[in-house]
């Protein structure tokens, strides 16, 4: 893992330009009540420029195919994410968000998280997003609401977000400068006392010997066979209590949602007068 002689991620001018372009683009694109097409075009161009800057700043991956796949799915995710937040219509935003999810799922798959990639599609796109759309159908008034055509402090927010992005990118770029964090981790995994207690150690120790503490071999390989089975083993073995807690959390959320809905309806029935609605609106 030799650092590149030219480290584009850590190069200040490129990142600064990307940050400024991102901020300007989002400021132009976000709903501001004017809807001038020239601003949109300019914003789109700036956004593309920012995107290009980030692509330039990115590291070269190993294989060409791999890199292309990663580039495509991440572009899908990022572009549709930007489109999500700049869409005037919430329905469009939801649909763009679905596309974002698809891109994220692709990124996850490239990263070797097969189960998570599929789960993201299933849970988000299949359940949550559909629920959003249901809510939109219930609640969205006909036409474009005024509050969808304006934004809250677009300039400051875009600037803050872009600066955050710049700082994060700078930190990510500096990762290479740090002493390689990867090397010690597998050995720590076996050297720590907790390693022996984890149920997956049987699976993990297939390719290693327990006697070699300083082995460089990873404890797991996410891309190995039986990925889902091993994830399940990890989840329901070492993290069983957390899973139970999550189940309880789901139940509580379910009951809570029902309770809030019914109580809200009861309160509305009790109020039954337009003044209550007005006062609440104030």
């Amino acid at each position, binding site marked *: 893992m030799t650092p590149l002689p030219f480290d584009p991620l850590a190069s200040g001018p490129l990142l600064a330009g990307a940050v400024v372009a991102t901020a300007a683009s989002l400021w132009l694109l976000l709903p501001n009540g004017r809807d001038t097409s020239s601003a949109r075009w300019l914003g789109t161009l700036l956004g593309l420029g920012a995107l290009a800057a980030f692509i330039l700043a990115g590291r070269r991956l190993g294989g060409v195919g791999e890199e292309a796949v990663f580039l495509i799915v991440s572009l899908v995710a990022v572009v549709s994410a930007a489109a999500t937040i700049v869409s005037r219509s919430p329905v469009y935003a939801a649909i763009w968000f679905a596309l974002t999810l698809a891109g994220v799922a692709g990124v996850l798959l490239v990263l070797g998280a097969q189960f998570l990639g599929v789960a993201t599609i299933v849970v988000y796109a299949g359940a949550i997003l559909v629920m959003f759309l249901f809510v939109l159908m219930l609640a969205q008034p006909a036409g474009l609401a005024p509050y969808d055509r304006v934004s*809250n402090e677009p300039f400051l*927010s875009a600037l*803050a977000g872009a600066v*955050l992005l710049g*700082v994060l990118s700078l930190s990510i770029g*500096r990762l290479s400068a740090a002493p390689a964090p990867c090397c010690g981790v597998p050995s720590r995994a076996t050297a720590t006392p907790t390693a022996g207690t984890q149920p997956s150690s049987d699976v993990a120790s297939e390719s290693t010997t327990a006697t070699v503490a300083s082995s460089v071999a990873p404890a797991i390989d996410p891309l190995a066979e039986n990925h889902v089975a091993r994830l399940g083993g990890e989840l329901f073995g070492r993290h069983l209590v957390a899973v139970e807690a999550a189940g309880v959390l789901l139940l509580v959320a379910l009951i809570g949602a029902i309770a809030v809905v019914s109580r809200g309806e009861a309160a509305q029935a009790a109020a039954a007068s337009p003044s209550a609605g007005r006062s609440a609106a104030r």
Partner: protein
Amino acid sequence: MQEFSPSTLLVLVPLLPLVGAILTVLLGRQLGAKAHLPAIAGIAGAAAVAVMLLAATARDVGPAHGVHAEPVRPVEMIATLWNWATFDSAYAPPAGSPAADPHLTPQDLAAGKDIRSFSIPVALRLDPLTATMLTIITCVGLLVAIYSTGYMHDDPGYPRFFALVAMFVFSMSMLVAASNFLLVYVFWEAVGACSYLLIGFWFTKPEAARAAKKAFLVNRVGDFGLAIAVFLLWMSYGTLDFHDTISPDGVIMPGIFGQTRLADAAGYVGGILGTAICLLLLLAACGKSAQLPLHVWLPDAMEGPTPASALIHAATMVTAGIYLITRSAPLFAACPGALTIVSIVGATTALVAALIGTVQNDLKRVLAYSTISQLGYMFASLGTGTLLGFTAAIFHLLTHACFKALLFLGAGSVMHSMGGVIDMRRFGGLRRVMPITAATFLVGSAALAGVAPFAGFFSKDEILAALHAKAWPAAHGDHHAAAAADGPFQLARFAAEASHSAGSAVGLDALDRPETWQILFWMSLITAGLTAFYTFRAVFMTFTGPTRVPEGAHGHGHGHDDGHGHDSHAGHAAHAGHGGHAGNAHESYESPWTMTLPLVILAVPSALVGWLLFTTNWLSHFLSATPSLTAPAVASTATPHMFHMNLAIQGTLAAAIGIVIAAIGHLGRRSDGPQMERFLGPLQTLFANKFYFDPIYSALVVRPLEGLALVAAMFDRYVVDGIVDSIAGIPVALGGIVRRSQSGLLQRYALAGVMGVLAIVVLLAWQLRG
């Protein structure tokens, strides 16, 4: 008596009323109408113990030896309870001062062997003076408390009243029993506080609240004097104890009135410092005993309940000043100028108060001015500085406590029956409907007026004798040639010392001349006549003439008939325009037995105690064993006990003239008719306005202070507050800038939070850069 040591008994005297007060406070609500029980039990116990102590002390003093007073051995007993607030190495007396130990050489003093610690021993003392005072306080207190059960019976503050009375008896007992100036000061304030609370007992009444405030503030002036006097005493004598103490290494530390210092003729500070101490003590006494500059609070204090007036403002508390000066007799003896001032203040007060009293129409105020006047008498007597003067003052204090308490309680009885009316013009002829009250009141009046052989006659005669002896020393010279040889020598020596010290003290001492005393004597004699006049004026207005009762008076309906013709009653009543109440004249307005019994009990000593004590000479002999009065400067002025016939004739003549004038003016007349005062012309205006003391004080003290307070208030409001407000305005203005950001919009808040986090993240990234 056999089981208890005198020191135990001495502690019991204040302790029992204190326990009674505390129990009354704690159980007052539960006891309800029986709330007087703990207080009365405590005071009764204290009275019994005080009488036992008096008897024990009298046994120690021994019997009087006929007419010739021999030097008596001082009798003193100290009970130290505990030491309070001890400080080591607090005081090193300068060499040559009276505080320095005469047994130590200057080398010792330089070596710091005389450095003393400062401590406040909570010590009670028993000597003849204290025993007498304790007996007066507890006995009068007991009778007043019994009387109060009738007088206050339906008052909502019933338990509070008795708690305060018991508390007062405790404080007063401690005041006279304390053997330390600081303790005296503490209980000086305590009786002042009790007085304040009792004057303001009906605090919802604005006049009562105002009177209480006035009494408290005027007393503060005197208390200030006492505080400064205590400081000066500490500076001068290095101790505040009355008695001698023996330090752990066997050295006798002389107390201010201890045997050691008393035996040393030069043991007391004279000159300008001594005079300052004495005048400050006099200021304190003037405050508490309502003497001339500070007397204005006492008449207003009559707004309190009548028993409280009788107890505190007639019989006991106001005598604290007399007690203090008697106790400090050696200090005063060293400063003849201060003594003369005492007499001048006293005689002037007596005359002025008597003059004011002649035109008062409020029965209680007549008695209040009478009290001031009689206290002035006592001060005049104290100021003579002779043993006769001191004992005469205490004698008059004793008799005055009896008959003034009697008179006040009688006035309270009248007021109680007349439905709270105390204006003498609104009732009259009450002797027919309140026979017991009338008879006892008459006894008290006779005692006050100095009618022989009632109590006041003898005590007043002794005071006049003391003044006369100073005014015309030659006339008395043959009686005490030896004493005269010694006494003037003493005085001359002190005067010489004083003249070495400073000029102002000499100026005061120059007052000590026979001419001054002659003037004072004649003032006192005139006062005696005036006393008789206003006393019997009150008696005639209240109890003689046509029977009239004010609206709202509550007859008890016992059908008690006084034996006089009904027709005349009815006729008088109808004639007075109270036809609707004509039937009431047949009813008895007499007070319940709990109120009349103390009247009867008090009437007995009012009538007899003067004669008893004078003929046996017991009291003066007894008192002369008080350590303070055995100081050479005082004891050397002892005169043989005798009855001064010429003085008695003069006093009786003055009283008779006063009574006759009062009878001419008021006997048998309607009390709301034209009065004597119309003959006084402009003087009547002067007297009725009380010599304009209140307006003068208001103009000289109150108004300037109010103006100053106004200036200070304005300064506070506009300058201090202005600065503070403008400083406070800075954050308000700054807040106004950021207040606009409080829009209530969630996303703006979120944005602000994000920007804050971002600032931290950027800072961290900057810190952690390569």
